[in-house]
């Protein structure tokens, strides 16, 4: 007979109560459109930091059932550009205290992230990013292949692979968390503060008076609003289209997958762009991994299988021991990608409509940070300095924060 309960296999208990299911009121000071991680975090910080609680979070499906339920839960702040590093590092600092703040066991585990380099240019880009991180006060190191193997012994650092590992950047404070619990933790605190979380409530249109939206039309009736805060990821462009505002968002499926539960084998997070895969081992023991986006646009939450096959090839190439792990389930989220791979946060041509979208592959890790900064922006009616660089008008001025051009690693 085997040992009874394997380590790490048990999940913590949830609170006995999470959120009410209220009927929508006729009017709210703030209507948050989108009950995903960002919408819920914004609601929580509106209440906690700004005392604003006459707030509704409108979710067209089930709470946090979009990208919040579909990401690979990686959290890191080792971004290249100052603007990105600032918001993600602010977020990471909030993550570090979030379990206490929410009073919820979100299984935040700072196990570090290795971003592998496989070519000379990867090495240059990695050094550049590490040096930038350090000058921004973010923990970052450049490691050689031997040091990579010390941190994650199952990575194949030998020369017998197609693109040998030449080293990696390492951020020890990076980690993972349990995505659903994070959303529920935010929802619970928002609900406690009196904020109405309204599921199965799809926003269909807006009533406009001059440069203001006065009413949000929903599948559950009209709701008058003071401020509208859009947190609808890829569907933001559809919503803003209703207001005649064009948003440069491209929505693509991004697939992820899990294996069965395995004994602990992978102690950190490994990401590789050249051999494209990223993988961690979650608390229960399953390998969680993802890779690149599907090429075509769409809101359908499923992708093409060759992307999964390619990802598996990359996984087995980098981690030969994964060969007989099994793909248990695959799914897709919808990443909303902007031309510079940085988010769009702040004002729109409508005075009381604020937007938060375009997080592409970075949305989960940004959740507390953007919730905090967006709530501040909503509360004060001006962009918080952390989000100011991400204004919609940068696509006109050209003041881009180009993370995909700039050696910023995806995801």
């Amino acid at each position: 007979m085997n040992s009874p309960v394997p380590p790490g296999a048990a999940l913590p208990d949830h609170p006995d109560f999470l959120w009410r299911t209220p009927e929508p009121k006729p009017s709210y000071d703030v209507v948050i459109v989108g009950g995903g991680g960002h919408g819920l975090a914004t609601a929580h910080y509106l209440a906690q930091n700004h005392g604003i609680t006459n707030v509704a979070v409108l979710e067209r499906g089930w709470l946090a059932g979009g990208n919040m339920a579909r990401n690979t839960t990686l959290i890191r702040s080792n971004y290249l550009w100052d603007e990105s590093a600032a918001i993600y590092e602010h977020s990471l600092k909030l993550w570090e205290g979030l379990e206490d703040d929410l009073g919820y066991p979100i299984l935040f585990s700072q196990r570090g992230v290795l971003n592998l380099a496989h070519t000379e240019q990867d090495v240059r880009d990695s050094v550049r990013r590490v040096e930038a991180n350090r000058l921004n006060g973010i923990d970052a190191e450049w490691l050689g292949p031997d040091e990579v193997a010390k941190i994650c012994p199952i990575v194949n650092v030998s020369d017998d692979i197609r693109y040998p590992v030449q080293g990696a950047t390492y951020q020890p404070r990076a980690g993972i968390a349990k995505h659903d619990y994070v959303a529920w933790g935010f929802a619970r605190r928002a609900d406690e503060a009196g904020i109405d979380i309204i599921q199965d409530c799809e926003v269909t249109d807006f009533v406009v008076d001059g440069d203001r939206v006065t009413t949000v039309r929903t599948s559950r009736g009209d709701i008058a609003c003071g401020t509208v805060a859009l947190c609808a990821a890829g569907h933001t462009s559809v919503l803003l289209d209703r207001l005649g505002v064009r948003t440069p968002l491209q929505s693509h499926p991004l697939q992820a997958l899990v294996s069965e539960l395995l004994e602990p084998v992978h102690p950190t997070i490994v990401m590789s762009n050249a051999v494209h895969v990223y993988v961690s081992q979650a608390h229960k023991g399953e390998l969680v991994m993802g890779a690149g986006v599907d090429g075509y646009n769409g809101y359908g939450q499923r992708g093409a299988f060759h992307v999964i096959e390619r990802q598996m090839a990359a996984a087995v190439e980098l981690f030969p021991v994964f060969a007989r792990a099994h793909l248990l389930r695959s799914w897709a989220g919808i990443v909303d990608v902007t031309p510079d791979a940085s988010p769009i946060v702040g004002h729109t041509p409508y005075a009381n409509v604020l937007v938060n979208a375009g997080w592409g592959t970075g949305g989960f890790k940004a959740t507390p940070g953007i919730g905090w900064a967006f709530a501040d922006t909503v509360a004060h009616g001006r962009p918080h300095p952390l989000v100011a660089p991400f204004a919609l008008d940068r696509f006109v001025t050209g003041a881009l924060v180009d993370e995909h051009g700039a050696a910023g690693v995806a995801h």
Partner: protein
Amino acid sequence: MSRVDGYGRIDRTRTLAFTFDGVGYTAHPGDTLASALLAHGVTTLGTSIRLGRPRGVMGAWTEDPGGLVQIEEPFPEPMLLATTVDVVDGLVARGVAGQGRLAEVADTARYDHRHVHCDVLVVGAGPAGLVAARTAARAGLDVVLVDDRPTPGGTLTGTETVDGRPAPEWVDAVVAELAAAPHVTHLQATTAFGHYDDGFVLALERRGEGSDGGARARDHRIRAGRVVVAAGAIERPIVFEDDDRPGVMLASAARDLLHRHGVLAGREVVVFTVDDSAYAAALDLRQAGASVRVLDGRSEVPPGWTRRCAELDVPVEAGTDVRGTLGSDRVRAALVGESRREVPCDLLLVSGGWNPTAHLFSHVGGPLRWDPELVAFRPAGELPRTTVVGAANGTYALADVLREAGGEDAPTAPPEEITPRGMLWRTAGDPARQFVDIARDATVADIARAVGAGMTSVEHVKRYTTIGTAHDQGKTSGVLASGVTAELLGRPVESLGTTTFRPPFTPVPFAALAGRDRGDLFDPVRTTAVHAWHVAAGAVFEDVGQWKRARHYPAPGEDMAAAVLRECAAVRGSVGIMDGSTLGKIDVRGPDAGVLLDHLYTNLMSTLKVGRVRYGVMCGNDGMVFDDGTVLRLAEDRFLVTTTTGNAAHVLDWMEEWLQTEWPHLRVRLTSVTEQWSIFAVAGPRSRDVVGRVFGDVDVSNDAFGFMTWQDTTLDGVPVRLARISFSGELAFEVSVDAWHAPDLWARLVAAGAEDGITPYGTETMHVLRAEKGYPIIGQDTDGTVTPHDLGMSWAVSKKKPDFVGKRSFARPVATDPQRKQLVSLLPTDATTTLPEGSQIVALPDDGRLPPPPVPMLGHVTSSYRSAALGRPFALALVAGGRDRVGEVVGIPVGDMLIAAQIGGTVLVDPEGARRDG
């Protein structure tokens, strides 16, 4: 032993030996690990993940939530269901406690991918699938029939009759007919695990370990004109206290074990059902020698079945239920009815009805709807190219299944009387001991907590309780969880629906999906026509895109730095030769070729004269440089465009996208000729002599063959193109020849240069030489945020052209910000430090020490080398407002040091350009 004579499709003449949990056992070919262990009376296989409770086999096949094992030999494989493991001689396995273990060594087995095309794909070789496949085959269609079990027949392994014959006989006849049909591929042990749009289905064929050195598994990528889903149905348990105890089993599983493997899973059997189908199991087990008692949860029991039960001395009790079980590692009694009367048993069979296996219908977005008569969710609505038949479609009676799948000339089966099915999710009892998902140790109490916490969506309940997330993905527990949740919410189950079915239907090994795309085949290795020469010359290679490029050619004892200094000195002092064949080459042809290139390059290409060469830059819509290269005008309607090595495919895609989507009216055709042409750079003050020696009939003088011109010639009848292009600032020629003749021409050039000490040089030397001249490498000195102006290449941006890709972005305010980062050189003031590439640049504080973070950054080092020509290290860098800072000293943090370096112009060697013409 619980093996019974006269049953099963096992080969009793042969015996296999295997080990489980350290104990040796025997089995027969045709046994699964589950059947072999049950034959030996082993009912507990492992322990549960959270509570450490005993777990055993509960299902017949992939739906089993309980019987997980770890394979150790012949090769470690985690978390397989014992019901799906074929016993082979020497098999070593053990039970698991919720987590599997990976091998510590790489898997050397081979895995293949196959592309399969057919008119009709039939998934499932049960009654529906066999009839559907036969009908399609008789119509002359290309048919592929896959079935996940080792042998066909589905549920037709028992006592049914088809066309008046025993069902197994009928199955054999159909299989024989299919085997004889010319366009039918019939694969058993092949699981269709994913269905994607447009008739694309993935199927994994399991072929066994080391099967004759062939593939262990094949991933069939099937593209079918029509997909017929005939995947059957999965029996649903009923929840009661301690329903997770080994010995509690789906009725269909016990029947399957008997008929496929000759195993009688218990001698003293209680059958608890709300569905007629369990009666067949009861009677079959009775006939195999067990004592059997049926407890029917419905007040009305089926009269026909009851009569047959009476004939065989099987008591039937109506309107009662099972409330719990007694036992330790194995059930010893059922607790029956309100009084919890103890009914002794060693096997408790359960049937709460059936769930259609509609996964492949759902994968492509097919909706499911609750059918109250069926007491199940079944496919609703039509999908293009997809048909669901038989039990997968909610058609359960055999006669109906055959008719639905076979139409007019379908085989027949005796009619069945159906007593209305009962809807029973759970019986009364302690919710904390009522297991809904046995694989996850999740109970009714867990669902109740989720509902109590405010959750009303099955997706939330799933995530809160983890029901349906285990290896079986809720095959038995998913709908059950919906039902229990609905009951607790006081809502109809149809308002809740099910969670989403997603691929794969059953777990698939990573390696099977990777196929052969591993090692050298992970990404194609591309080598030039002269690769063998480079290898023989001792070159060290680097990966550039998919290409292997010679990086440097170390002489004995040399490291890279020494080799590169030597190669650089050779080029600047005499002559060197480099294989530039990896450059992307695109043949642009058609009357509007010049128009297209004018649209795509920042400078004018249409004005280029035939016989001449021009350097060009391409930008994205954002005005940022993304590629560069030379353009040769070959004829009025023909250009040869070269691209960077790593970007060749991307540039071609880019050009095609514009051509096909924005300017389809342009008469231009694009053809990649990267592989067809080899290009050698012969560079250095003696290059003219070397080229002149090889091509005696070409006047290579500066007057006859000017810079940025090209000429065609022949060598022994072989066409060769010569061009005066220099990426080193030296007098240089590019020699192009078709790839077939390339090794010979390379050898001739090397031989002709011997007297000048011609030196082969690699990409590293090329990089140093070009950097000394301030020529950027796109992708190294740029990062997608750099305009041509930032590179000091305003001269390459046409002011005349009305438009080109990127032009409008140059008009944005930020494009002319004087603080934009600009390409400059850096000379470390100590004249000895080689700055690491990628280093950041900061203002140099007065005290020369790096202040604490955050420290504003001015830019970064893009390229850095030691220069033979300068006798010192130097670097290129992007620096904010860099051109206005020339002469300024900045700091570069390197480890704990802050290195001072002076900003300069980009051209460090031969700024007058005197060396270019020799």
